């Protein structure tokens, strides 16, 4: 029994949370809620004397605005009460803080079994509200029943029910021990073990494990440690985790037979080695600023004489599908930890995010067990908002793309940029070393069942019975404390190496670090737990958040441990790194596992896969009659993929640290999304970084080669548009694909794999042509859902993120028109490339044939683009560019409309002379999404200089910036659009305003 405390705002104080709940219930669920008041409930699971209770009660409520009572407060008038609490074992951040507050108020530390658990009450008023409505509000708006409990009471039921004082505590008393796994059975038996254990290992892998444990030298080594002949669950789970697609990238490492459309056959020996690392190795010969690529938690490049930059972009798709808030917050604080564990430890500079969802206005059926897209979107945003804001890291880039196929699985990209002093204690900061004898130290949060099987699970499609344990919840404040502690420890030289605990938990972090010393000896019984009842293998694999693993020289342990205590951070030595050649795992005085490092890391059999390319036949939409296109332009601005995402974006903090230069939204009213963002890295220096990205899953419906080439070009040209130089741009690739492996459930695997091959080839071709090395990347290869008996696969998606370096941020260029009278130029060739464009997708939808988006997708002339980008760079350096904006979705027409809107000015434009216009039909000229183009403006008195720079390049005058806020767009004598900037702004903003 716990002590129940209820805290309520005084009736005269507005309840913003209640008001928001009522508004969302009305808006999203059409539930007749007239008002809502809320309360916080604390279940204090520790004995308190009456005097102590009185002190706690006083401390919990703000004396000006709220009151608290032990037991129940008298309820306000209500028709239904919904009480939402946590399920046992789920991270309760508010509860943790309340526990600390009690410790302070009472001047005593609560015991290990004493805790505080929280719940929230929603008192709903609404005379027409039925119980079923209240239930829906609970399930569909307030609680995720995977991790939370949700109970509904009528006033009579509430009055009759005794106050709930049962805390959601896990008190299991199972004996922790390792169990042998018998792999001696037939093939079907091996597959059953893999399937039922969520190991995600195929038959070849299961056999490799069986054969390894049968080796005589392995048997004798194990026998000497008192291990049984059969592998233990600790060993099998550890191998399954280390060999998971998530960690091992088996598809990117596979041997692939690729058969082209004409039957030509080609063998590819690892996509990663051939196309990604291959490209970077080629580019590296002419780029001397690569510090560490593909080997660490993040890519590291040289920035200045004082700092390196480290960058990483991750995906967190599966957890976000199950618990959007928890999955997404874990995504952002997780990638933050990647940076904290890069080199000797990075300092966080900024975050990026990007999501692919189904339409939030989707009102069709949703497969059983999946959430409606609006709910996923709201939860994902809120998770990354809270994770980023509470960590004190500003966001600098964000995007959203919408397609119905993301109904099955949303894509959640989270990225972080960090800085690392070039040298620490006189040594290069990117170098990682571990010496035998160093202590294995885990610091940060405690271990629970959170996220067990996260790594293997994300390598599977979403099924109805997908385990709830795959969900973790982030605690940004615990992580922030750990982060500050780690920077102190780093600067004092207290550890030798650092890495984060992400997928696979300790098995991954210790497994990886042990390669540097040649072995490790780990005692799981020493690990601090959130609650009892964890088996050894669960402790090893848990993905509980906010943890880092350090290699600490024994002579520094006392100092490190004392510093951790002073900073309220838990740090525990769990064993030692060794040179034994094996990972040895103990639980107290018993050895529960031993795996040779060679087998652990290199024993996984390679896949051989089949890829076959047949270009899809995609019909084109019917073209509307010739004439004005004002209506089309406004519809394009309203479309989900083009429209402003500002409403949600403003909930992310873009200002903390005070380093921003070009923010995510720019212009006279700060409502135009910047092509790229720019920030300083140190307060008193003018060097800066430029961030951009490219993503376009739509072109994949025609050809993933065109898709990937366009995406890389977009990410690069955005940096160029903001004033960057091709010589100083690095890239990051994130592939999110539907399962491309041929099987019974994936008969079209060879096609999807061919799409992957083609995208990789494009990535190689374009990054080598531009000299833009990839420094880090990630792939997520099983983005399919089979719930509700229906398979939904995402369109093949590549996010290419870029980071550029700028010597002087004051030279940065922004996309908004700046001054009436400036000359507008169209730079770069427009071609008839409307395939899968925003325009064709709009037409196809209007015509009721959503698949009829065919046509030529954008191509790429990299040699010409390189010359253009150099010229744009020179123009920016010379201060000739008043503005520069690169067209993407919606082509030149949308680009002109937005640049004018950004400046709150107008434009009088004629595209007849635009490069490529001759022979092109009007719609193609207006809306084609051809790559490598810019709309730039220049002061009329400097137009000559600009034109001289672009002599011999496709660049032509296309109009004038006007003081009247109106877009007048012609092609020769044909009027194509004539519309006020106010209408443009309204169209651009209205779709997701309030969403």
């Amino acid at each position, binding site marked *: 029994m716990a002590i129940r405390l209820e805290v309520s705002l005084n009736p005269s104080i507005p309840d*913003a949370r209640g008001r928001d709940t009522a508004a969302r219930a009305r808006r999203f669920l059409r539930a007749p809620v007239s008002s809502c008041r809320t309360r916080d409930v604390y279940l204090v699971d520790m004995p308190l004397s009456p005097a102590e209770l009185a002190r706690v009660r006083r401390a919990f409520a*703000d004396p000006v605005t709220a009151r608290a009572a032990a037991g129940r407060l008298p309820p306000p008038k209500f028709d239904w009460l919904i009480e939402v609490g946590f399920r046992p074992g789920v991270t309760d951040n508010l509860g943790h803080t309340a526990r600390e507050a009690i410790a302070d108020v009472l001047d005593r530390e609560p015991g290990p079994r004493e805790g505080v658990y929280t719940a929230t009450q929603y008192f709903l008023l609404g005379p027409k509200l039925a119980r079923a409505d209240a239930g829906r509000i609970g399930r569909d708006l307030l609680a995720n029943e995977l991790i939370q409990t949700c109970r509904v009471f009528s006033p009579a039921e509430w009055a009759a029910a005794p106050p709930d004082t049962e805390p959601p505590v896990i008190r299991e008393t199972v004996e922790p021990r390792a169990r042998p796994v018998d792999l001696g059975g037939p093939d079907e038996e091996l597959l059953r073990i893999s399937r039922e254990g969520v190991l995600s290992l195929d038959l070849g892998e299961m056999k490799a494990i069986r054969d390894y444990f049968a080796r005589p030298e392995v048997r004798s080594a194990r026998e000497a440690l008192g291990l049984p002949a059969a592998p233990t669950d600790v060993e099998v789970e550890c191998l399954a985790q280390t060999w998971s697609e998530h960690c091992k990238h088996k598809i990117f490492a596979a041997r692939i037979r690729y058969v082209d459309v004409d039957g030509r056959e080609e063998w590819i020996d690892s996509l990663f080695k051939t196309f990604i690392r291959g490209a970077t190795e080629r580019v590296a010969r002419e780029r001397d600023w690569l510090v560490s690529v593909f080997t660490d938690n993040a890519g590291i490049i040289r920035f200045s004489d004082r700092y390196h930059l480290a960058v990483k972009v991750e995906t967190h798709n599966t957890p976000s599908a199950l618990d959007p808030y928890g999955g997404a917050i874990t995504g952002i604080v997780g990638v933050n930890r990647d940076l904290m564990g890069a080199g000797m430890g990075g300092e966080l500079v900024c975050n990026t995010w990007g999501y692919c969802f189904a339409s939030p206005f989707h009102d069709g059926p949703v497969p059983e067990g999946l959430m409606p897209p609006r709910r996923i979107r709201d939860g994902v945003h809120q998770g990354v908002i809270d994770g980023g804001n509470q960590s004190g890291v500003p966001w600098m880039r964000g995007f959203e793309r919408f397609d119905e196929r993301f109904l099955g699985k949303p894509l959640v990209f989270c990225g972080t940029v960090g800085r690392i002093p070039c040298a620490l204690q006189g040594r290069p900061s990117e170098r990682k070393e571990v010496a035998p004898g160093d202590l294995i130290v885990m610091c940060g949060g405690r271990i629970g069942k959170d996220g067990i099987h996260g790594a293997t699970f994300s390598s599977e499609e979403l099924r109805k019975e997908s385990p709830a344990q795959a969900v973790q919840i982030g605690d940004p404040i615990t992580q922030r404390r750990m982060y*500050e502690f780690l920077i102190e420890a780093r600067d004092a030289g207290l550890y030798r190496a650092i890495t984060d605990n992400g997928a696979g938990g300790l098995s991954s972090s210790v497994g990886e670090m042990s390669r540097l010393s040649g072995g490790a000896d780990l005692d799981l019984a020493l690990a601090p737990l959130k609650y009892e009842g964890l088996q050894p293998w669960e402790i090893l694999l848990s993905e509980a958040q906010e943890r880092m693993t350090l290699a600490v020289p024994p002579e520094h342990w006392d100092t490190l441990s004392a510093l951790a205590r002073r900073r309220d951070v838990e740090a525990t030595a769990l064993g030692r790194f060794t040179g034994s050649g094996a990972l040895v795992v103990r639980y107290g005085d018993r050895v529960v596992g031993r795996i040779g490092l060679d087998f652990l890391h290199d024993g996984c059999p390679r896949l051989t896969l089949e890829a076959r390319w047949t270009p899809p036949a995609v019909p084109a939409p019917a073209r509307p009659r010739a004439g004005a296109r004002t209506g089309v332009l406004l519809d394009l601005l309203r479309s989900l993929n083009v429209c402003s995402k500002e409403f949600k974006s403003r909930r992310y903090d873009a200002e903390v640290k005070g380093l921003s230069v070009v923010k995510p939204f720019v212009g006279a009213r700060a409502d135009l999304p910047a092509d790229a963002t720019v920030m300083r890295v140190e307060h008193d220096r003018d060097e800066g970084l430029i961030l951009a990205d490219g993503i376009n899953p739509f072109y994949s419906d025609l050809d993933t080669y065109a898709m990937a080439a366009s995406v890389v070009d977009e990410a690069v040209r955005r940096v160029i548009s903001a004033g960057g130089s091709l010589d100083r741009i690095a890239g990051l690739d994130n592939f999110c694909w539907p399962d491309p492996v041929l099987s019974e459930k994936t008969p079209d695997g060879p096609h999807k794999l061919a799409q992957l091959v083609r995208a990789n080839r494009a990535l190689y071709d374009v990054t080598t042509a531009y000299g833009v090395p990839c420094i880090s990347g990630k792939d997520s290869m099983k983005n399919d859902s089979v719930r509700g008996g229906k398979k939904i696969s995402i369109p093949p998606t590549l996010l290419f993120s870029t980071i550029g370096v700028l010597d002087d941020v004051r030279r940065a260029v922004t996309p908004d028109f700046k001054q009436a009278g400036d000359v507008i130029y169209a730079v770069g060739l427009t071609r008839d490339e409307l395939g899968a464009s925003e325009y064709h997708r709009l037409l196809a939808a209007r015509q009721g044939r959503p698949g009829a988006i065919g046509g030529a997708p954008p191509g790429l002339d990299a040699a010409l683009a390189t010359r253009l980008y150099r010229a744009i760079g020179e123009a920016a350096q010379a201060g000739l560019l008043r503005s520069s904006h690169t067209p993407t979705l919606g082509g030149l027409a949308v680009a002109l409309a937005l640049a004018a809107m950004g400046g709150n000015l107008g434009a009088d434009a004629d595209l007849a002379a635009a490069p490529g216009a001759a022979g092109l039909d009007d719609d193609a000229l207006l809306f084609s999404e051809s790559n490598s183009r810019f709309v730039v403006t220049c002061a009329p008195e400097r137009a000559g200089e600009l034109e001289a720079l672009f002599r011999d390049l496709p660049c032509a005058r296309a109009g004038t910036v006007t003081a009247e806020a109106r877009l007048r767009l012609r092609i020769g004598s044909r009027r194509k659009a004539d519309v006020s900037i106010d209408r443009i702004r309204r169209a651009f903003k209205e779709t997701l305003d309030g969403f």
Partner: protein
Amino acid sequence: MVSDPSILILTGHGLNCEAESKYAWERAGARTKLLHFNDLLAEPRSLHDHAGLMFIGGFSYGDHMGSGHVMALRARHRLREDLEQFIGAGKLVLGVCNGFQILVKLGLLPGLDGDYFTPRAALLPNEGGVFQNFWVRVRFEPGSPCVFTRGLEFMDLPIRHGEGRFFAPPDVLARIEAGGCAACRYVDPATGEPATKFPHNPNGSVNAIAGLCDPTGRVFGLMPHPEANLHRENHPRWTGGDGLMLFQSAVAWLRKA
């Protein structure tokens, strides 16, 4: 003595504006010391080595139980005497955003009648219900005793908070206004007059109060972030940098004191 005044900046537990706050004070001519809150609790007397104390922005304790609530609980419990002594010695206290919330939760603001530990006002969740980040225009009131805002008039500053709606019971509000303690207000950029509506009044604050000082003018807190407006390029239209003046004003006052 003419040495540069020293400012103590508290860090830890989710506070996160230490780097830009340090830079602001140093550019304004002060020395700074970043100190983890736990280290101050361990040695509260070290507070008195400094001429000014800053509670920075961030998310102390994750804003759990209300923004600033738990940090204020701990400070009240462990630092009360030293804070009283510090203010009594004529020194300066500044709180920005979460720091302002902590000062109000403690009672340091409005600090009427020399009583610095009875909370009398509150910063409620924004009227719009959510955290928001954008730039607003504020006006510093000329009649205020606030030593941080002397000679300042209008300024654009970013807000980024979820709980910034200033509230005080009518009698307290009247005394705040009578004493010139409402040192900083949200204004409509078109008129320069106090803003009543979103977005110019971003959170629904009563009397458009964005910042508050105590009757001595030496304790000051505000929701917008002057330390995030130190470069011309910090402003969305590259017309910024004036946030620095607030720190310069405080340093000038300390040099004379």
